[in-house]
């Protein structure tokens, strides 16, 4: 029923994708290029969020796309192709992360904080930011840096929900956690990012950016 979960999609888009998928299943593999083209960035973004390393993320994204092609017959049209593809990328990234970790000493992840409430620390006024701000590379880099600094369990929920625009249910399914956990982690991720980014004393914006001396970047 939740056909519109994620980005707003043209209803014709899904029909079009279903026809492409049928052509691929019939052996016309070249149609796969057309099918994945709109989602390449999203696959890479999901992999990068989980792996935090560009080269690993690229290899992971390629592998995920290849797996999608190989398993295209298993795709069921009641799901959206984009969601299915992102889920493959998430699984691939998680598998690699586990493998990387097994080579290292297992980090002790204490997420006691998940049960306790997170109170905002930063109350600087942060009015609407014009989206043109994102044309500036240093702003995008600051946002990416803040995102990579928050805990893994928060980062993956935030990326799937707020960047990939999956619904709460789809995010829960992709990560194998409950919708209640998605909501709790999402709240915390958003609050932490806000604290990291809201301009103010001690915030990374005021320390590192040349324009930050009394002038907000927006």
């Amino acid at each position, binding site marked *: 029923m939740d056909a519109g979960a994620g980005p707003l999609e043209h209803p014709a888009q899904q029909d079009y994708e279903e026809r492409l998928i049928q052509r691929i299943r019939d052996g016309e593999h070249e149609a796969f290029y057309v099918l994945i083209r709109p989602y*390449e960035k999203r696959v890479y973004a999901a992999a990068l969020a989980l792996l935090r390393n560009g080269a690993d993320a690229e290899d992971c994204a390629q592998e995920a796309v290849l797996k999608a092609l190989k398993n295209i017959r298993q795709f069921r049209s009641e799901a959206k192709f984009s969601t299915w593809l992102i889920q493959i990328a998430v699984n691939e990234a998680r598998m690699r992360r586990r493998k990387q970790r097994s080579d290292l000493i297992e980090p002790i992840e204490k997420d006691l904080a998940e049960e306790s409430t997170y*109170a905002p620390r930063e109350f600087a*006024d942060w009015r609407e930011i014009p989206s043109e701000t994102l044309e500036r590379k240093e702003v995008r880099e600051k946002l990416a840096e803040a995102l990579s600094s928050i805990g893994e369990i928060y980062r993956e929920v935030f990326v799937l929900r707020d960047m990939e625009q999956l619904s709460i249910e789809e995010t829960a399914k992709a990560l194998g956690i409950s919708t209640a956990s998605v909501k709790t982690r999402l709240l915390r991720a958003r609050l932490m990012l806000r604290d990291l980014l809201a301009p103010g004393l001690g915030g990374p914006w005021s320390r590192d950016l040349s324009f930050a001396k009394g002038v907000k970047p927006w």
Partner: protein
Amino acid sequence: MVINCERVWREVSDYLDGEVDPELKAAIEEHVLGCQRCTAVVDGLRNVVQLYGDERMMEVPAGFSRRLHQRLEGDMSRSRRTFLGWAVAAAASVLVAGGIEVARSSVFGRPSLRSEHARPSNRVPPDMMVIVAEDGKTFHVAGCPFIHDKPRLRTIPAREAEQEGYAPCVRCMKKYLDATASSGANPPNEKLA
């Protein structure tokens, strides 16, 4: 219902996602009106969601598409090894790569669309009344938490909003359309509260 700051901080994320009941929504809005700290929290969270939700935050390294397609080509040609298949694949990848360049340049030439996610959808009934802000980029259902506290809001039909270059808000419009689609109801004309 009267609520305190801590309650607002617990609910603020669900509030932005439209996941709170109308009574709590009203209570949050009333509290925020008179509380500078909570205004900062709600505004900041909204900024976080909007900034990270922008397509420009999804950058890929230079040559990413080309390398992906090369790997796919390699995989496909290994699996089939027919010259015709390879030629078609190579031609398709050139076309696709060209298409991506065209698409990229057209994205920058069309700043009116906030993101690819928010491309106009014919699911929005053209006569439905929606809210736009003069300096905004998206149109909303009345009451959407993503309408910033703006002085110049207009209520216009969706058709006009799209003609003027506004894209549907990925949050409220999607939720609204899903709800009307599942209830089978005709979308009523929304009024400004």
